[in-house]
């Protein structure tokens, strides 16, 4: 027991080593949060363009651009995209690493969100669009007031899953020299030559965040389901 106390002290308390985890967690959360926002924005945009093209044949060029985007992002590893974003796209700029990571993860997430949202839009009965249009709503207004709210409800579990994946994927940030939660734990390991405690601590923190997220989404889902008793 004393041995454990000693190890705990060396790994977390001594030299304020817990700050590696606190700082790292802060960066992880910032990157995840803003990437998720960018992902949602891009995802909805791409999904609306794609499903508009599929339903009406309009937006041909935009649809082609979206398809290239989806193919490239989904066809290459996240880590490679992050490295390219850091050393090729912004290689000659001295941009904050957190911004680089936010852009890389946001663009990546957008591609996956787009396909989730598109499946949601396509799952809504075409009669809903017809009902909206025949009341006099434009295509865009029908989308906004009638189709998207229903689609959002259907895709919420898949969307939540995407953001859980996103949170965990940010753990590769260390490769561009950014201290996220994972890198923070790893730094402690390299200082104390002890792997068990810092890495388990990192894993537990991820686990707790994911559990909180799952719980929040579950509540939101129940609230949105009130119309289906």
């Amino acid at each position, binding site marked *: 027991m004393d041995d454990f106390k000693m190890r705990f002290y060396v790994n977390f308390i001594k030299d304020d080593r817990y700050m590696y985890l606190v700082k790292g967690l802060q960066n992880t959360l910032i990157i995840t949060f803003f990437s998720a926002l960018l992902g949602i924005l891009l995802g909805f945009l791409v999904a609306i363009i794609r499903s508009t093209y599929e339903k009406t044949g309009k937006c041909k060029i935009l649809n082609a651009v979206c398809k290239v985007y989806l193919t490239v992002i989904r066809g290459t590893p996240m880590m490679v995209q992050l490295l390219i974003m850091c050393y090729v796209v912004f290689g000659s700029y001295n941009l904050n690493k957190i911004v680089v990571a936010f852009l890389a993860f946001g663009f990546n997430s957008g591609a996956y969100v787009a396909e989730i949202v598109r499946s949601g839009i396509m799952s809504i*009965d075409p*009669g*809903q669009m*017809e*009902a909206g*249009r*025949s*009341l*006099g*709503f*434009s295509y865009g*207004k029908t989308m906004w*007031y*009638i189709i998207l*709210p*229903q689609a959002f*409800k259907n895709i919420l579990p898949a969307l939540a899953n995407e953001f859980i994946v996103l949170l965990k994927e940010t753990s590769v940030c260390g490769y561009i020299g950014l201290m996220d939660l994972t890198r923070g734990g790893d730094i402690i390991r390299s200082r104390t030559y002890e792997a068990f405690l810092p890495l388990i601590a990192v894993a537990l923190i991820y686990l707790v965040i994911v559990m909180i997220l799952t719980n929040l989404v579950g509540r939101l889902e129940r609230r949105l389901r*009130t*119309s*289906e*008793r």
Partner: protein
Amino acid sequence: MNDRGDVLFKVEGLCKSFGSNLVLDHISTEIKSGEVVVIVGPSGSGKSTFLRSLNLLEMPTGGQILFEGQNITDKKTDIDAYRQKIGMVFQHFNLFPHKTILENLTLAPIKLLKKSKVEADKEAMELLKRVGLEEKASAYPSQLSGGQKQRIAIVRSLAMHPEVMLFDEPTSALDPEMVGEVLNVMTDLAKDGMTMVIVTHEMGFAKEVGTRVLFIDEGQIKEENTPKEFFENPQNPRLKEFLSKIL
């Protein structure tokens, strides 16, 4: 508003084809204000397509439709503004499942006619009272029976104060015991002088309420007449065959 007897729709040589399949074959007719036009015909005859092209849910591939003298098939027509004047009731109701009944009725008046919520709510409650469903105002569509849903769908359209109501087989998806309640609402509407175009298989309703009956087959109007003549003295051999099967 239009006086009774004014021509609302003037359909000239209307054609619609899906690929090489010609569904509407040069249909021409007029629909006057106050008329209750019932369209009957075998399935696949193009009757629903004809009705749906009246509010441009199907875009005609030939001919034109004039509404109050204005060519609505013209590319420059503001389709959304036009559709506000045309009520549409679907076979499968198409209520908005994520909105309460009251919200279903008030969404379009608030967003499109820019009515205040108070005003729209008040009007919606009056409409709900008219079909005997005011106690369902805060319910969701999934909590209603088919007949109730269709009555809501009708008043949802009425909330926009349309000049014409189109009905696409409004009772075909209902259990038999619920058909009556929907037809009653439609009958009341007709008595109030609403111009109605109805695709239906309810021949009793066509006889009682219709002012004119159209028989569409193979994309053409094969016969049109007053209900009495139409049912008692059919001329077209296809119509005779059709009536003998269903009556």
